[in-house]
């Protein structure tokens, strides 16, 4: 019996050991739900994996959690859209080589009948204010994502109080939040790529767009190996180089054109936009 147990233990150790050896080719990419839900990474990653032999483990969470994973060394590379927090991460020394990748914009979506008359606002700040004053439902991501950070920064510009009578927190990703907003006929702030991807499944329409406050840039950040020696720094750099390369930038520009008739993400790596 004892011998059998010893053998089982050895077998289990070998099994786990073989897994560990194979693991050095893994890259953990912590990113936002928008790059996952829009289908962009599904289009890019197979090409990257084929070119480099790395396996990418994509963890699609809010930008806030993604950066927290970077800070703790639980991710190797980040693709996020929350500029103020990103700068903080780099300043604190947890992230290096922050490079622009692409941008699109945020849009305020809501029910077509627009009960708050937010579409008539002169700017997005006023549109938000109109929603607050009318008491029409607004769904917040409330998940520390880049979209949530942007939404909070706009509310902050007004002095409206966010009452839980009309301001609801979903705590979920962009896709799930759009579905909830659709069911409750509520307003929500969305990134354009995810909205277009969901457009034929929901009845929400674009209420307000085009304000320069709604600019939404994505950056790639490598986690600093000096802070966390265990991370796959070489893999992170390979991925960051790949996503900012001319070839990939062209793929990003073309992504979604056949399906939606418009560009979902505008490439930024080559022209140095921030």
């Amino acid at each position, binding site marked *: 019996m004892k011998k059998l147990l010893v053998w089982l233990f050895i077998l289990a150790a070998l099994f*786990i050991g073989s*897994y*560990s050896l194979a*693991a050095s080719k*893994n890259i*953990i990419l912590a990113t936002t739900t928008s790059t996952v*839900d829009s289908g962009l990474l*599904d289009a890019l990653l197979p090409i990257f994996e084929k070119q480099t032999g790395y*396996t990418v*483990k*994509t*963890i699609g969470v809010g930008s806030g959690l993604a950066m927290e994973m970077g800070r*703790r*060394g*639980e991710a190797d590379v980040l693709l996020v859209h929350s500029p103020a927090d990103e700068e903080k991460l780099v300043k604190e020394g947890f992230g290096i080589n922050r490079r622009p990748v692409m941008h699109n914009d945020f849009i305020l979506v809501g029910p077509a009948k627009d009960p708050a008359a937010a579409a008539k606002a002169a700017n997005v700040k006023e549109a938000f204010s109109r929603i607050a004053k009318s008491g029409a439902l607004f769904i917040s991501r409330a998940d520390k994502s880049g979209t949530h950070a942007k939404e909070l920064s706009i509310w902050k510009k007004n002095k409206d109080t966010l009452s839980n009578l009309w301001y609801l927190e979903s705590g*979920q*990703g962009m*896709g*799930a939040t*759009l*579905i909830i907003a659709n069911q409750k006929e509520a307003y929500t702030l969305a990134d354009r790529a995810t909205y277009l*991807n*969901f457009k034929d*499944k*929901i009845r929400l329409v674009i209420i307000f767009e085009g304000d320069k406050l709604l600019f939404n840039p994505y950056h790639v950040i490598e986690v600093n190996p000096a802070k*966390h020696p*265990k*991370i796959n720094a070489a893999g992170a750099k390979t991925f960051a180089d790949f996503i900012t390369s001319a070839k990939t930038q062209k793929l990003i520009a073309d992504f979604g054109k056949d399906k939606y008739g418009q560009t979902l993400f505008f490439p930024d790596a080559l022209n140095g936009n921030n």
Partner: protein
Amino acid sequence: MEIIEIIILTFKVSGCALICSIVLGGGLGFFVALNNFTGKKQAIAIINTGMGLPPVVVGLLVLLFLWRGGPLGFMELIYTPIAMVIAQIILATPIIAGLTMAAIQAVPEKMKWQAAALGARGWNLVWLLAKETKSSLLAAVMAGFGGIISEVGAVMMVGGNIRGQTRVLTTSIVLESQKGNINQAIILGLVLITLSFSVNCCLTLIQQRARK
């Protein structure tokens, strides 16, 4: 086809977890039921509590242990199928142990004495009792399997629901419904129920044959 991959992974992960839980849970159940030791009542209470462990809490614990910064981080198991198997073993083992224990304890003491008097010792006694309580033990296996195949919270956390690597039926149902692909989610749901039904059918057939 992607769905085939997902089904195969679901079977691999659930199968591995079920086999390990049967060995661990069954062993634990027999041990506690057949031995008298100090703290036995407490042990039973702990196992019974374990039968209702919240999957998200288990997921969180496994996550903390397996993260690179955690005590077992050097094994690089986070976001792998092995991590999912570990979480499911922790969930299913107490279920199987608790039900096994109850089944063995329900065997009349007289019968145990008789078996012992006829010379059954150690493994022989365990084997005899297992045969005697076959249908209850199979019910324990079915309960464990049910817990494993339907679990979503823990495997989502420790597996990460990575396409082609750790995406199983339950996590892809969550993903598809979040993406608004309700039709896809319904199809996956039907596949999951069908799989669960067929496995339980097989186990039930064995169980009912054992009753004759």
